[in-house]
């Protein structure tokens, strides 16, 4: 699923990063071009404003040269026209759309002021020549009754009767003026005067990161010490807010992230679907396959899927069935082989048992024929041989009879059977038998006789393992996972790996006079009862054999492989 996610997301991440980088570069370039163009527009607009002021002053100069009342007032000193002159600048200021206008005579005396009507008679001789030296519009502080205002001003002149009069007019430079210069909502403009810092701004968003686009110097007539003035340079700074561009970048990022999230969600869903459809079934199939062995071939591989996994499952099911059939055939072959071996062994054993009898009978027949008087004595002499052979055959018959038990399964008290077996044990010298029986052992579903035979064989083997050196044989029961476990352990010689591997084979024995059928019988009986057999052994350390019954379990179960401790 992770690999699938990486494969699906990695290309998208690369594409997103590339597209964003390319888009960012293009947007930035276009924005810078636009900003430079608009900066040029702002500068041109400022120049146009100055030119417009000049045009209006020129028109006013023409009008004043034709104004007889003004001429009478300023050349003839007609007192009747004084009020007309005082109001003239205000009237003309309104007509021309200027926000500052004053008319001065050659001495610099203000004859009429539109923005400060009652400022008449004040001397301001240095302003017109400074404005003229600016060769265009200049910023200047103009006085009004409400305080000084910053004005973009120009100067013009008119001559009447040989006397020169200066016309100083302009537009107020305030936030509105600057706002009209700012070419767009994302641009801001600020005016800085020497020594005064920023005196006016327009369209400056407080929370944006502004980037300076251009700085334009504007002539500025600054007031110096006393009434002296000087021509300096103010700075008009055009800044561009990157807020819109940043917002666009954020928006693109958000959309890319959203696309990534959607893709990741889809990948996750697809991965989950694939896991449900492929990975999990394969894992379950693997687990089922891992449970398969020759002793447990009942794993169900049936499935309703019609895809590749279904086909694989059906193939495994078929293989299991073939294995089950093969195992059955193998077991049958083994049984046939065992029967053959048994038959040969029986034949051999019976022949061995019959041979002494045959010899004794021939001997007795010869004595009866040759020496009838000694028949009784010879018979008495040879009778132990007959008895031993008969006992041998009897024992042999009983042992063979034990190879084919018939089960009569019913709940059994494992502790009671253990006690019965313990009571009949003939212990070697210097040996001890210990019973460790748990009281909470549940009943075991088994044939009581079979269970007794299992215990008798195990205890007999345990006693034999002591090899006459003495030791301890322990019979125990414990509750195990809701079922019961019977344990027979000894402190005897133990077994090697090779011995253990053959310990359950028929007729395998390491004991003189042993039949080699004890553990073989145990293995079959345990398997017939559906219990599990486990052997823990180590040479010199003894052996521990456990038979585990599942709760109410009488089905055939696996014979747990013997372990070598």
């Amino acid at each position, binding site marked *: 699923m992770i690999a699938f996610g990486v494969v699906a997301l990695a290309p998208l991440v690369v594409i997103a990063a590339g597209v964003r980088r390319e888009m960012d570069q293009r947007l930035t370039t276009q924005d810078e071009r636009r900003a430079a163009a608009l900066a040029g527009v702002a500068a041109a607009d400022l120049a146009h404003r100055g030119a417009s002021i000049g045009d209006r002053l020129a028109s006013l100069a023409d009008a004043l040269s034709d104004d007889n009342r003004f001429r009478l007032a300023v050349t003839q000193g007609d007192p009747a026209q*004084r009020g007309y002159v005082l109001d003239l600048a205000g009237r003309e200021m309104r007509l021309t759309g200027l926000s500052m206008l004053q008319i001065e005579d050659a001495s610099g005396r203000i004859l009429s002021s539109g923005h400060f009507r009652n400022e008449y008679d004040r001397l301001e001789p240095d302003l017109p020549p400074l404005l003229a030296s600016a060769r265009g519009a200049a910023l200047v502080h103009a006085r009004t009754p409400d305080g000084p205002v910053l004005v973009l001003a120009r100067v013009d002149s008119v001559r009447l009767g040989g006397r020169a009069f200066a016309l100083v007019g302009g537009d107020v430079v305030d936030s509105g003026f600057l706002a009209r210069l700012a070419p767009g909502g994302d641009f801001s403009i600020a005016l800085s005067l020497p020594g005064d810092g920023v005196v006016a701004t327009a369209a400056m968003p407080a929370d944006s990161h502004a980037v300076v686009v251009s700085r334009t110097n504007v002539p500025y007539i600054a007031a110096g010490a006393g009434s002296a003035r000087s021509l300096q340079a103010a700075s008009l700074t055009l800044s561009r807010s990157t807020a819109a561009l940043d917002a666009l970048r954020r928006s693109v990022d958000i959309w890319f992230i959203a696309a990534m999230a959607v893709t990741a969600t889809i990948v996750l869903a697809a991965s989950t679907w694939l896991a449900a459809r492929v990975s999990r079934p394969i894992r379950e199939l693997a687990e089922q396959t891992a449970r398969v062995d020759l002793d447990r071939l009942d794993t169900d591989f049936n499935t309703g899927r019609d895809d590749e996994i279904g086909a694989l499952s059906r193939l495994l099911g078929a293989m299991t069935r073939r294995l089950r059939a093969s195992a059955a055939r193998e077991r049958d072959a083994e049984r046939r082989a065992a029967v053959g071996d048994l038959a040969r062994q029986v034949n051999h054993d019976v022949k061995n048992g019959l041979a002494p009898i045959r010899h004794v009978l021939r001997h007795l027949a010869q004595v009866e024929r040759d020496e009838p008087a000694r028949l009784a004595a010879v018979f008495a002499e040879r009778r132990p041989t007959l008895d031993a052979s008969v006992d041998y055959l009897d024992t042999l018959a009983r042992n063979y009879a034990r190879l084919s038990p018939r089960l009569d399964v019913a709940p059994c008290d494992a502790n009671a059977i253990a006690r019965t077996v313990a009571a009949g044990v003939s212990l070697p010298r210097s040996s001890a038998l210990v019973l460790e029986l748990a009281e909470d052992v549940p009943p075991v579903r088994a044939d009581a006789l079979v269970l007794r035979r299992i215990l008798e064989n195990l205890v007999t083997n345990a006693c034999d393992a002591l090899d006459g050196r003495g030791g301890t044989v322990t019979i125990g029961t414990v509750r195990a996972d809701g079922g019961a476990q019977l344990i027979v352990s000894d402190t005897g010689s133990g077994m090697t790996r090779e011995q253990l591997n053959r310990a359950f084979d028929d007729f395998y024995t390491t004991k003189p006079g042993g039949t080699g059928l004890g553990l073989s019988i145990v293995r079959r009986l345990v398997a017939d009862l559906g219990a599990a057999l486990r052997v823990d052994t180590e040479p010199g350390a003894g052996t521990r054999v456990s038979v585990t019954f599942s709760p109410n379990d009488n089905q055939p179960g696996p014979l747990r492989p013997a372990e070598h401790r």
Partner: protein
Amino acid sequence: MPASLDVAVTDAPDSIAAWLSDLGAYQLAAYSGDTVRLEPVVDGAGPALVLHRIPARAARDALDAGVDVLLTADPDAIAYAATRSDLTSVPSGWNRAYGLLVRGDQSSDSVPALARDTVRAQLATGAVRVDARPASAWSDDPCPTPAGPSTATNGIAAAARPHIVYSRTDDVARSVAARLVALGLSRKELLAAFSASLANAGDSLRAEGVDPGDVAREVVRGRVVAAVVAVPLPGCGLRDVPGMDPATSHVIPLIQTRERLIARRSLTAHALATLAHAIGDSSQAGP
């Protein structure tokens, strides 16, 4: 004689207030918004007068619309009427006085009369656009000066702004304040004749329009250095200045103004005389 005369009055609430305080042979018959109807006390003794208060910019429109009489100080309207042969104008009486309200005791002022007279003359002849004359005395009216409790201290409070306040509805007061500010820029010695605080303010002196009721209070409370105040004439001088506190402030007279009565020439002399009598004594007025 017409039964009634339509009289337009431009921005002259003080004039209307003066009329209503002494209606003479007339009595108030109706009052609605900007319209007042006066009728003779004796039936048939004269025409009813319907007074309409209009803004100054509408004065010439009122003349063109045929109003019987226009009472105004607007120089443009007066100049316009002079160009019309069907109209005649006569000055009203000096019906308004303007003074400079400053903090402090009048007796503490050194009074350079020449400088004050110079300023008064400049105010009367150039600063204001109405018919005005210098005023060296506040009022000839003998009304007693109220002696109310004073809550302010003498002298200019430290927080006083270097502003001369005026009523933002009064163009004459605004012009007077502006001229004083202009003098502060160029002729500080003249301002010193009125108030040392004004002279000291110098270039920082400003003119500021405020609500009419706050003009004197700004000075009395020590927020500004001076105020241009106006009172109707005839009247009771300081007592008619809203918010005035004679104990801490005093008024230095500056100018007196008057309006002009513009009437249609078709009106009979009797009607004009009746109207002149109704709106006040114009005998002081020049032609």
